[in-house]
């Protein structure tokens, strides 16, 4: 068994002293991500090149120390929490945009580049990067690849996997390989690019990504439809899609969320609405106008009190600012939230939302709803105070009840946040043991023998089962135990 001293020496060798964080008070800042669970790593490294990443992975494998990759730590399923401690590899210093190629409409970036930074850099060429998670100002492309991130505009344009052409990755055993091909079509051979995206950092760490860029739409119309009830809003979503319209985005926010967002971000939301839909259509001006008119009509027919159309870019940005900051704004109402990420068929939206409401009442926990209504991707946010004894357990149970309802409605466990550690015990609801064993076989293909981002996605695995549920047990393992 290696000691912490051996580990730090090996890491310093790989990336230099200054890029190794090991003091107990420093690593404290890496025990969390965007979720509620925490786990203290032994060390954190900040590599700047793919070679350094490979050297770190090799060193950790040699010393048999677990590795957890981390982008900006904005993830919402605990993907960047080092469940078995060990070493966190942060991509924060790999944040260069290497190339924007307007002719081939692609961008080559390092993994630590923020999602929004790509679109900002491409804007002068009239291009943008389509997936737009709500945390896009801060979340990284590397993290997006790991979680196969989505976002409001993925309704029409698809998620991360539809926009990543090629990657350079360091696999779990420290080999530097290329996946995919920087051409419009997926290259010949097995699509390992597809297998890697959404693997939640369990197969390796991405060190360079070639992204597809799209031309900025010529015309955009953003509508804000105001409703008394979530049911009316949900029915409008079904009606819009049922009418054959494909908006760029359809987002829903409930009363609690609206009030928090308005208080925090002053985005002009109606304070007394029961729910709103934020709908965006883009494309050629005439068609956009016509579609916006039809969407407006559908909303009004299904009970909208008012349908507002953003007058200018400034108003559109304000409306979106509220949506994108909505989750964080919940911090105004409660010290903690637990955000779920379930998917149901659009046709089952209304009844699933009713279940969420019932769960909220049964567990006596307020739940805010803000989600991608267009693709049935729900984000109920359970609000609570972690300092209250027993609160966390009740929250986890409420979350489980909601996830169960999503599955029962024919849906799935994650739209975009990933499974991480938080939902792995539910995977059995969706998959048979054979299904999961088959998935598990992919890990050794990329050299993961159990050390690379351990205890994520699939339940079980050595030493992971007992951690699945109880946060206290994780803490009890001891924060200053040596590797």
């Amino acid at each position, binding site marked *: 068994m290696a000691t912490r001293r051996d580990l730090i020496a090996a890491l310093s060798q790989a990336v230099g002293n200054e890029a190794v964080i090991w003091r107990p008070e420093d690593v404290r800042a890496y025990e969390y991500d965007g979720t509620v669970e925490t786990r203290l790593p032994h060390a954190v490294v900040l590599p700047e090149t793919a070679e350094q990443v490979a050297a770190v992975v090799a060193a950790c494998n040699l010393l048999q120390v677990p590795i957890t990759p981390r982008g900006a730590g904005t993830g919402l399923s605990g993907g960047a929490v080092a469940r078995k401690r060990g070493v966190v590899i942060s991509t924060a210093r790999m944040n260069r945009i290497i190339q924007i190629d307007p002719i081939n409409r692609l961008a080559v970036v390092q993994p630590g580049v923020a999602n929004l930074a790509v679109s900002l850099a491409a804007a002068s060429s009239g291009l943008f990067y389509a997936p737009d998670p709500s945390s896009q100002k801060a979340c990284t492309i590397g993290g997006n690849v790991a979680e196969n991130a989505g976002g409001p505009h993925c309704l029409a344009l698809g998620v991360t996997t539809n926009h990543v052409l090629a990657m350079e990755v360091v696999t779990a055993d420290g080999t530097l390989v290329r996946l995919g091909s920087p051409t419009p079509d997926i290259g010949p051979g097995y699509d390992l690019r597809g297998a890697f995206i959404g693997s939640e950092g369990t197969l390796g760490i991405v060190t360079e990504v070639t992204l597809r860029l799209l031309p900025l739409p010529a015309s955009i119309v953003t509508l804000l439809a105001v409703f008394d009830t979530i049911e009316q809003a949900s029915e409008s979503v079904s009606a819009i899609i049922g009418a054959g319209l494909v908006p760029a985005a359809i987002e829903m926010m409930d009363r609690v969320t609206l009030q928090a967002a308005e208080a925090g971000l002053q985005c002009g939301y109606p304070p007394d609405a029961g729910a709103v839909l934020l709908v965006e259509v883009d494309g050629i001006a005439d068609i956009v106008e016509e579609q916006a008119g039809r969407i407006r009509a559908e909303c009004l027919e299904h009970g909208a009190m008012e349908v507002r159309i953003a007058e200018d870019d400034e108003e559109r940005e304000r409306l979106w600012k509220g949506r994108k900051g909505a989750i*964080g704004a919940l911090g105004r109402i409660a010290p*903690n939230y637990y955000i779920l990420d379930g998917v149901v068929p659009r046709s089952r939206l209304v009844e699933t939302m009713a279940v969420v409401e019932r769960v909220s009442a049964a567990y006596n926990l307020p739940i805010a709803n803000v989600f991608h209504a267009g693709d049935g991707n729900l984000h109920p946010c359970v609000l609570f105070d972690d300092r209250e004894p027993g609160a966390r357990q009740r929250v986890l149970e409420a979350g489980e009840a909601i996830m169960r309802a999503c599955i029962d409605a024919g849906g799935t466990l994650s739209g975009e946040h990933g499974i991480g550690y938080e939902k792995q015990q539910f995977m059995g609801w969706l998959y048979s043991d054979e299904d999961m064993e088959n998935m598990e076989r992919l890990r050794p293909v990329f050299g993961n023998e159990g050390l690379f981002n351990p205890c994520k996605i699939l339940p079980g695995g050595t030493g992971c089962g007992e951690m699945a549920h109880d946060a206290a047990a994780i803490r009890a393992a001891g924060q200053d135990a040596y590797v």
Partner: protein
Amino acid sequence: MASEHSHWPLLADAPADEDLSRCVHCGLCLTACPTYLVTGKEMDSPRGRIYLARSVAEGTLLTTPTVERHWDLCLQCRACETACPSGVPYGRIMEHVRAQVAEAPQSDPVVRRVRRLVLRHIVARPRVLAAAALLPRKLAGLLTRERVAKLKPKPLRRLAGQIPRGQGAPVRPGFELRPAGQERARVALLTGCIMGEVFGEVHRATARVLARRSIAVEAVEGQGCCGALHAHDGDLAYARKLAKKNIAAMESDRFAAVVVNSAGCGAAMKEYDDLLAADPKWAARAAAFSAKVRDFSEYVAELGGEVPSQLETRVTYQDACHLAHAQRITTQPRALLDAITGCQRIETAGADRCCGAAGLYSVNQPAMSGELRQRKAVEIAASGAQIVTTANPGCHMQYLAADAESHLDVEVLHLAELIDRAEAAAETSR
């Protein structure tokens, strides 16, 4: 209220648990934080700093020299507050954290002690400060642009370059300027500490711009340093003392507003209500006073009306953090510049990112301050601007330093100076 387990040494001024628990560590602040962008370390991000503070508050972490270093490296620019959807009052948290560090420092106790003494006994004492400012003012008279540009080595050139030139005599309490015609309203002007001594021309320009709008400007006696630097340093007790002095001096109903042309001072004065909230004798007075405080650009925009102005130039406006992030004023200064005939305004990508001046930061943290200054220099050079304009004395001097250090060949002006120049030019051309 601080929790019972807290390791804070000064419970009376401990960061409030309600403030700390507002942070849900979503991470949206990361890319807004200048120091995180430089080091890439979570402990040098707002989220990380709050987490460390929260750990100390919950009694699971002791303040160590390492922890203090991460707090010390914070610019207190508050860009994270603009980015934060939860409304975490980060500036307030950091001031209270600094109060804790000052109470029982684990590192650099002598430096911290000296800094506190300098702030209390030089910066906050007009006569002592005037004496201290004499040398730089004399130097400014001798240093022409050309002389500065030839100085070597670079650090000397930078130091000499950042002394404001052409600022004339100091403007101190007692100063008054009345409009030529009828007086529409009267405002109190904060002369401030360093501002009044070495930026006299900025004050005069401020008064002239207001006088053209029929506003009388009076720098009333009895006022003093605003206390912002003291609060940022965690010396909340002294900041409260200075706040009371200014409230007493300038709260009179004679004044329609209290106009401040230094973003840092304006932000602090708008938060006097917060600073004195727990003081039953002063809370109401402070709230009334804070409501009357206006930044120069904010007040001019409120006044409305069009005064002709003309200046053929390319200018870039660089936000002062405590204007953009603490006071959330970003559109008014730009609109005022856009109203000048012939003035082409160039927006740079990092305009609202801190330049690294940050009050005493350039002295306390010269390396990080220098890095941020050089990043600004690159952006300004790329913009092709002839004039850099800002709205805070610290930033002003940092851009002067950048100009000297990197041979940017730009003129640095306070927004009031630039507007005054353009309005004067329009007057003479008529």
